[in-house]
């Protein structure tokens, strides 16, 4: 049993010192949890408050919760000083879901075969592709986005989901490629070879052996990629037409457009992070891996 460094006391190991250490430890953890979770908690509370409750000074934890903010968003109508406004936020949510799903599907279609090729065959072009994608994952996105915006405009592609989905590959594909490549590399090559000796070509081997064995990795990579696509802002800001904006851009515009309608903003915020937080909790074991592009496992 090795106790953590924080628990080891350099003082005399008296009871009091131990108690103090434990108390300090608990206090520190409480502060950490408070700092990181309070904003989420507070915005969640706000989303159930009327504007009058929100604007009350001093702020209070006690109020009669209302679903009116959510109701307004789902009804698509919001009351403001310049009259009833349409809220397109639901469409933003739909766009996010659609864009993220399509991006992930495309990334899997493009990335899984490539990841397999890079894992199983060592060839120059493969490493070049893998590292180019990786290095552009860290390049300034606007560098690629702005010329792309010009091209898309000229080609008439600037109002399509597919052009956005294509650009999303910039973040989604390296993730998918490198995580799944790791899973393929972890498969004992003898297993695949055995299957080929059984009379199966590389195609069948890829489909029947490599993919099923890498399935947990593929699933984790896909869901992580979904999260990253959903959370992306700058790509859609530059390239998405109004009708195709995801929640990240939509929420920002919503804030600008709805002024002091804090309740609506809070509800919109909650709606745009809730699916992702749920997914993240579900995926927690794989998060470290996803965030480090497959370099560290949790």
């Amino acid at each position, binding site marked *: 049993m090795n106790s953590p460094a924080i628990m080891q006391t350099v003082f005399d190991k008296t009871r009091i010192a131990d108690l103090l250490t434990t108390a300090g430890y608990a206090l520190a953890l409480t502060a950490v949890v408070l700092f990181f979770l309070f904003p989420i908690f507070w915005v969640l509370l706000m989303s159930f408050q009327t504007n009058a409750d929100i604007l009350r000074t001093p702020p209070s934890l006690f109020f009669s919760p209302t679903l009116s903010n959510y109701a307004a968003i789902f009804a698509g109508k919001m009351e403001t*000083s*310049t*009259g009833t406004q349409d809220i397109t936020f639901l469409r933003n949510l739909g766009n996010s879901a659609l864009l993220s799903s399509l991006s992930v599907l495309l990334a899997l279609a493009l990335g899984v075969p490539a990841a397999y090729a890079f894992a199983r065959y060592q060839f120059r072009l493969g490493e070049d592709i893998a590292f180019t994608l990786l290095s552009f994952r860290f390049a300034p996105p606007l560098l690629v986005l702005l010329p792309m915006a010009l091209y898309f405009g000229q080609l008439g592609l600037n109002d399509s989901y597919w052009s956005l989905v294509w650009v999303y590959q910039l973040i989604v594909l390296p993730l998918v490629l490198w995580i799944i490549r790791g899973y393929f590399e972890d498969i004992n090559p003898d297993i695949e070879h055995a299957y080929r000796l059984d009379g199966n070509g590389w195609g069948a081997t890829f489909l029947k052996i490599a993919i099923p064995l890498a399935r947990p990795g593929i699933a984790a990579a896909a869901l992580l990629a979904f999260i990253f696509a959903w959370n992306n802002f700058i790509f859609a800001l530059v390239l998405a037409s*109004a*009708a195709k904006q995801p929640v990240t851009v939509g929420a920002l515009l919503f804030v*600008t457009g709805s002024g002091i309608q804090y309740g609506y903003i809070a509800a919109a915020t909650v709606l745009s992070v809730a699916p992702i937080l749920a997914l993240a909790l579900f995926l927690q074991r794989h998060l470290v891996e996803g965030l480090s592009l497959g370099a560290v496992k949790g």
Partner: protein
Amino acid sequence: MSKSRIEDTARSFLAGNMSRRAFIARMSRLGVGAAASAGVLSAVANRAWAQDFNWRKHAGKTIKVLLPKHPYATYLTQILPAFTELTGIRVEHDTLPEGPFFEKKTSELNTRSATYDAFMDGIMFAWGELLAGQIADLNEFIGDPGATSPAYNWEGILPNMRASCAWSGIPGDRLGGPGSRQMLVPLGWEGYCVSYNREIFDAAGVTPPENLPAMRETSAKIKRDVGGSVHGISVRGAANWGTIHPGYLSGFTSYGGQDFRAEDGKIRASMNSPQGKEFTQLWIDMVRESGPPKWTEYIWYEVGQDLGAGVAGMIFDADILGFFQNTDENNPAAGKIAFAPFAANPAANGNPKSNLWVWSLGMNNYSANKEAAWFWIQYNTMPQQLLAGVRDNGSLIDPVRGSIWNDAGFIKRLQDDYPGYLNQYEKTVGECQVYFTAHPLFAQSADKWSRKLHEIYARQVTADEGLDQLAEEINADLNRAGYLL
């Protein structure tokens, strides 16, 4: 028999040959009540246009337009069904909050995208768009009988509005001067006045200020005497062009400031004149003392909401802003807002100089449906439509046609519900014009100007130093573009 006489009367009224009063009188003689005559009017209106002009030329086409979140855009979207019914042209629209709207419009045009066929626009932006070849010269449509209905009456639009929307493309040239191209068609305009909350003014015991030093004192007094969450004055302050063009530039001009000096198609920044510096320092001091705490994020939405929510004693911004805040019954300040003309410079004689903003309609030069887009622009600015816009739904104010300012119903509504509005309008309209010097780097220089105001506001520089730096930076930009005088 009687039916055709009713329609004749309506047609005659629509053609502008008859006053509204005479029209209503004639209609009641024909046994048609006021409510029913409105229906007759709109039916006849559509039919009249359909008879005089082939509105169905582009039936079946679909155009797409880009609009900001603004009451004038509400006006446009409300009449879309009637437009489609008349012309058979389907119209899709994207409506964005104002900041994103301008960014979107720029990015669409910059990428030569044909996604939007037409859009709402502002004059100062059209300068760059015209030079870049992004917007069409509308003169070719206005002068084409095949494209423009005889009922359109282009000349009926206020001359300074028409002129403001036209430019030769040479930096420093007068708007509407020789060689002008018609960049846009004006839709509704706004001038800048003081809109104030009478209740707060009464509580603080103040009256509408006459000039900037008085405004500063009044504002400070409100903050001091009323207190709480109430501050004295709200004006725009976000880091973009929108901060410069309303109250700030109006006052700046009133003080004798001039943004650029122009000569032979070249310009040089001149906002760092002594007058400009004096005004700027006073203005920023006022905002810092008794303006909104989040001034650096303020665009007109916040300014309007402060007035409507009763947390700002006054605003110095678009006349129509106070108008709409006064109308919305949900606002704490609804019905308490009054209007006053404002000349910033105590030494100024005569009428206030107000900068002019005209919400206008422009056509994408890359559009594949130009004439259909022109039909939409034209329809929206028909005399009949503009009249209906001010009368019926009330989301269109400050219309651009002189005839409408003679409409008794409109005038009465203004007099009854918007104290001081007509007075400020009459005082302001005389010297209401675009006080920016026309040049294609407008957005960039106004953006820098606003950010420089932030620095002055944060006391990083004084107005004196700041405006000198600003002029230097803008001159560097002009030099790069080859426009520096």
